């Protein structure tokens, strides 16, 4: 039986939730504020920053100096490409682990997850040399492959969790009706798991969009995504806070909007299986 929530308690909970939310969102909010200031005003005290003139100057400078749309299209292609390729590989993998597990399934799942604990810089040189030999350096295809590989454990794990919620009897019934393995996965399993697959896609697009180690180290002028766009405005010798903030806002805006509209699916995806 659900506990009754008093209005007072509801108000406290709401206030607390908003406070925590604002605290988490504050760095992004402050970046947005600084992006509308001049470099001179951006380094002043918070009160002076808020009361100084608001201007689009930094956005105009960034737009004039950098090819935003080239970086943006690279980010879209790399994030979407790596996620979809990962889904293509992960769906059959998660199916076999969820519905025909072997005694090693648990171990394989844990091993896959453990690869995420390896510091990326430890394999930078082997991958860099491999990319040179294969002609993949500074190509979108190269980044799609690498980002797919580094996110694959998460994709498999998420899909495995969703598939485990689907009764195996339904697939068995399909098999008895004469469905082949391909038809079983494509026409029975996938439609039932669409909410889970959508959540997985959303989360992995965000992860791939924000990835900043491989995207900086394996690109130069052609395939550089928005992470490289932001990095070009950071400097230890010279004040570029306003321009850096403007570049950051331009880089995170698309994913922020995507996250806003799909927050229900995201929350569902992240909490799936948490309560039974």
């Amino acid at each position, binding site marked *: 039986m659900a506990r009754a929530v008093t209005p007072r308690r509801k108000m406290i909970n709401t206030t607390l939730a908003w406070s925590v939310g604002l605290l988490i969102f504050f760095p992004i909010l402050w970046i947005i504020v600084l992006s509308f200031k001049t470099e001179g005003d951006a380094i002043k005290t918070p009160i002076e920053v808020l009361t100084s003139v608001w201007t689009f100057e930094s956005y105009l400078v960034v737009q004039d100096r950098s090819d935003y749309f080239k970086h943006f299209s690279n980010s879209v292609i790399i994030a979407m490409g790596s996620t979809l390729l990962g889904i293509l590989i992960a769906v059959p993998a998660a199916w076999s682990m969820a519905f025909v597990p072997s005694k090693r399934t648990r171990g394989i799942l844990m091993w896959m997850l453990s690869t995420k604990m390896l510091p990326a810089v430890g394999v930078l040189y082997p991958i860099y040399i491999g990319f*040179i030999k294969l002609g993949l350096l500074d190509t979108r295809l190269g980044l799609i492959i690498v980002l797919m590989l580094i996110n694959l454990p998460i994709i498999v794990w998420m899909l495995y969790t969703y598939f485990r919620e689907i009764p195996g009897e339904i697939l068995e019934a399909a098999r008895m009706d004469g469905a082949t393995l391909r038809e079983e996965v494509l026409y029975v399993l996938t439609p039932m798991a669409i909410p889970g697959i959508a959540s997985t896609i959303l989360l992995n697009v965000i992860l791939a969009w924000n990835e900043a180690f491989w995207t900086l*180290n394996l690109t*130069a002028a052609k395939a550089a995504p928005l992470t490289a766009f932001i*990095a*070009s405005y950071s400097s*230890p010798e*010279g*004040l570029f806070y306003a321009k850096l903030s403007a570049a950051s806002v331009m880089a995170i805006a698309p994913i922020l909007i995507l996250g806003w509209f799909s927050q229900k699916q995201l929350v569902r995806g992240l909490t799936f299986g948490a309560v039974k």
Partner: protein
Amino acid sequence: MKLANALRAATAMSLLATGAVHAENLVIATVNNGDMIRMQGLTDDFTAKTGHTVEWVTLEENVLRQRVTTDITTKGGAFDIMTIGMYETPIWGANGWLVALDDLSAEYDVGDILPAMSGGLSHDGTLYAAPFYGESSMIMYRTDLMEAAGLEMPDAPSWSFIAKAARAMTDRDNEINGVCLRGKAGWGEGGAFITAMSNSFGARWFDEDWNAQFDTREWSDTLNFFVNMMTDSGPAGYATNGFNENLSLFQQGKCGMWIDATVAASFVTNPNDSTVADSVGFALAPDNGMGVRSNWLWAWALAIPAGTQKEAAAKEFIEWATSTGYIELVAANEGWANVPPGARVSLYENANYKDVPFAQMTLDSILSADPNNSTVDPSPYVGIQFAAIPEFAGIATEVSQEFSAAYAGQQSVEEALAKAQALTNDAMEAAGYR
């Protein structure tokens, strides 16, 4: 806009005239700072003159260093030209990773490059990178606060004067700190400053047998002097302050003195960004009466990685970007105060440039820095704020982390020096120096 359109038209005509058969597309890796961004804006001039086009990869200094190091050590070929510093150039040149710049044209006039710069960017007398701009370090101070304190800054002050002036100028009630200095961890941040300062106290990183020297009185004197002065007169939290944090404080009028890179002079005297632009004076970095000043020497330079397929076009770009013609181009578009400083002798003989308030002090600072004799006692390494050996960046980053922990009060100066001594000797032994 008119200039840009004219340059584009000239580019198109030039391409038609030359048939564009030999036109190359150069990929250049560079750092994000005012001079480099200015160069990117003027690239149309290079294209108009040669037909070659340019793509820029601009990265933050530390990211760039890692990125180009990965590429050059694996012969990746991602870049045709790299922006590197005085630390990397002699090491990479010795390893055969860079194209020697020993056949530049007569019009380029290699002899016009400041000897301190060409010396620091060479290995065995061969130039491997052309300086785009050079810098030393010097004192920037508030003339009004100095006057109010009843003191007069000498052209070449001592550390004891700086400490005295800092204490006299400090006014905590009005948020004025007598002196702002780098304390941030990192070999190129606080590590660079304290190393240059230690030279003037008679300290050195290694003796002639590559033994660490942090257990000497000279290092103890350096660090204790620094911590005492900053505790009395520095800003709160100075252990995390680097160039940008101190620039921000100085521009807001919260520092009496700031000892840092000479390129900062154009920022603090720019009335658009600095609230104290009209009351800034300059002086040489301090000494301690031992014959060595505490200023450093650095250059951002353009180099060609060995194995590039576009060596000829890359050399054409380097000649264009580091020429006297480029300096005149910047002066015509942005004014003489914004030309890249510290690279060419002729710039400092130019009557127009002599009017720039910080020009002479910048030159004097650069000329007083000698990377080959940076310490009072003899040392086995070249470099002032660094030792030009491959292991230095890693070791110095760790050492500066220990020093920053001491600045923050997390450990004593003695503890920091003992840890620095142990980790440096361990690393040098592992690398085979000892």
